[in-house]
């Protein structure tokens, strides 16, 4: 894995340099959050739905081994082979081996954050297989050789002008035509051709039903259906945490998912796939890639309840002002920040600190993941493992000494305030990050403690 990633704080500062663009990014995502609020408010039972979804997921995770085996048996009985992948590498190998067997050269793929996590596109392209992402947002970022910056709105970091320029470069559309309808139609024309000529379709999975062995894929564009119905081969890739026990549970999740994601009452397409249509083959790849490890971490187990709605992204004031790419992980935002350290602590040690711990994520989450508490707990673990560095640790140790000894605290407080009054340049300088864009507080002559000692005691 690439260790030379830019820290979140630095990437975020870069993102914020373009003030207008940053404001636009914040407002666009806030608009989605506000739309979500309206949709949630329309359901008086919203909070109990969240409670129920969280409980169903907790139950499923507690019995994941059993439900996975039930799912496997049911799917096999439906004529769908199940493949088990321990990690990203095995997942990619399995997908390629199925494609190779069918001599597939062209693949259309609907949105799947799992395949992003596994780096599937890159892997397949190296094997000479062409993969086209058919979700419009993903299609745009794929042309630009970028990662999605948001799990539901992959190209949300781009404005229509960027899309126009990208399409002009890669699809030869009219230069400077920024009309969204024109741009969408142009993409549609290209994608139709890809759908019709693809030899295989890869999809993600939103929910897998243990009871029936079926999978459900939610899209707004219908691109999963178009791909699957036009191709002879369908490979569905899913993390093992996508399971829910019964079909009747689906209603709880579908109601929460679309409302939380975009404020829609329901996704435009909730497509159910149970068995291959005549002449077709369907395969499901079940991927672990760190999930059982996370399941074993008691403090972080709940993170596996995630249904990838992106509501925590939209609500996060830090995400809105730093952009998805600053998180250097396939899943960005608050949820990404508690999933990523599980995969690679060293690379992702900065992410749990990319938060003010405001707690909005926890309260917006449709499956009630205690995200901000997990961010806090990751901080403790990462520092214990030594990822904070010597300087931070030493200064924290010094701070702890001062703040736990009343006499030292009072003395340092008094001296510091005097110094700040007499030599303001000591703190009002470039070395103090606070001072870069903020004035320091005006130190008073007396602390409250000093005043109390003189006047009240």
């Amino acid at each position: 894995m690439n260790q030379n990633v830019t820290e979140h704080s630095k990437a975020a500062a870069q993102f914020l340099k373009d003030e207008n663009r940053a404001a636009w990014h914040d407002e666009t995502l806030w608009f989605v959050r506000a739309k979500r609020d309206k949709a949630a408010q329309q359901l008086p039972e919203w909070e109990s739905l969240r409670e129920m979804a969280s409980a169903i997921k907790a139950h499923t995770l507690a019995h994941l081994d059993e439900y996975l085996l039930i799912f496997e048996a049911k799917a096999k009985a439906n004529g769908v082979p199940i493949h088990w992948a321990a990690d990203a590498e095995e997942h990619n190998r399995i997908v390629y081996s199925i494609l190779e067997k069918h001599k597939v050269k062209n693949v259309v793929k609907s949105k799947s954050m799992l395949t992003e996590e596994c780096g599937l596109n890159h892997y397949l392209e190296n094997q000479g297989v062409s993969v086209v992402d058919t979700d419009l947002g993903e299609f745009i970022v794929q042309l630009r050789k970028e990662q999605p910056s948001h799990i539901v709105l992959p190209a949300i970091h781009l404005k229509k002008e960027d899309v126009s320029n990208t399409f002009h470069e890669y699809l030869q559309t009219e230069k400077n035509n920024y009309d969204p309808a024109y741009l969408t139609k142009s993409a549609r024309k290209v994608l139709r051709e890809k759908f019709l000529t693809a030899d295989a379709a890869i999809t993600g999975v939103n929910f897998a039903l243990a009871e029936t062995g079926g999978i459900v894929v939610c899209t707004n564009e219908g691109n999963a259906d178009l791909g699957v119905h036009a191709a002879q081969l369908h490979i569905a890739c899913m993390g093992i945490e996508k399971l829910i026990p019964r079909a009747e549970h689906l209603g709880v999740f579908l109601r929460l998912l679309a409302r939380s994601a975009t404020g829609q009452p329901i996704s435009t397409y909730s497509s159910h796939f149970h068995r291959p249509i005549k002449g077709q083959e369907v395969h499901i790849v079940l991927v672990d890639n760190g999930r059982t490890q996370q399941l074993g971490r008691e403090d972080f187990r709940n993170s596996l309840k995630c249904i990838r709605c992106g509501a925590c992204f939209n609500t996060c004031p830090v995400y809105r002002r730093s952009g998805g790419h600053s998180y250097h992980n396939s899943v960005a935002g608050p949820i990404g920040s508690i999933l990523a350290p599980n995969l690679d602590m060293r690379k992702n040690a900065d992410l749990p600190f990319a938060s003010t711990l405001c707690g909005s994520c926890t309260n917006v989450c449709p499956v009630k993941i205690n995200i901000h508490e997990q961010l806090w707990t990751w901080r403790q673990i990462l520092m214990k493992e030594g990822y904070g560095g010597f300087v931070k640790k030493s200064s924290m140790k010094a701070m702890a000494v001062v703040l736990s000894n009343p006499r030292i605290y009072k003395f340092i407080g008094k001296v510091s305030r005097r110094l700040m009054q007499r030599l303001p340049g000591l703190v009002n300088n470039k070395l103090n990050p606070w001072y870069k864009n903020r004035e320091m507080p005006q130190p008073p002559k007396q602390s409250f403690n000093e005043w109390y000692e003189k006047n009240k005691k």
Partner: protein
Amino acid sequence: MKVALFIPCYIDQFYPQVAFATLQLLEKIGCEVHYPMNQTCCGQPMANAGYASLTNGCNKNFIQNFSGFDYIVSPSGSCVVHIKEHLYAEQKGKEAAFIRNNIYELTEFLTDIAKVENLGAHFPHKVGLHISCHGQRMLGLSSMSERVGPDFSKAERLLNEVKELQLVKTARVDECCGFGGTFCVTEEAVSVRMGQDRIREHERNDVEYITGGDVSCLMHLEGILKRKKSEIKVVHIAEILNAQ
């Protein structure tokens, strides 16, 4: 009612006027207020930076200072949350538990324990309220825009009783200001931008003051306001409730 006054370290050092106001308010409503002289810090700066392991000294000192009272009251939601969630000690488990269960943020104490209706305050100004996340989401001092349920706000209820005070709300009612403890320096750019965005909303409302229940948020907002030479001032809710 024997009440111990907990004044967080940065209020003690930089905003003693908030501590005076809190002390006077509590005395005004008839509490027997004690201020333990050897109090320092709740330990949150280390804990939120990932070093909760270094807070044993703070915990010990806190328990030493704040045992033996009916209630502990503080003009800071954030520090109260930290104590409620993280004050533990091997030796003094019972004392720590008592403190965790009997520590209150000021507006919470005034509303739920003292059951104050009207403090007779007078503050003839246009005021914007900044809702601090820790008080709101972790102490439940007000409803949250993410959640579905009845609207309420302990701070607003108290401010509505203040004579001639005009309270104006921001469009984003409860967005974080970006202070976030050490976040304010480790993620300086995002922190400042968040603060600037909050301030822009209050500017649009043409307020004279921004108030709130946490001095940390106000200190951050004040730093930005002063840098842009704004006329808007920050004032802690205790100072307003204590104003005559």
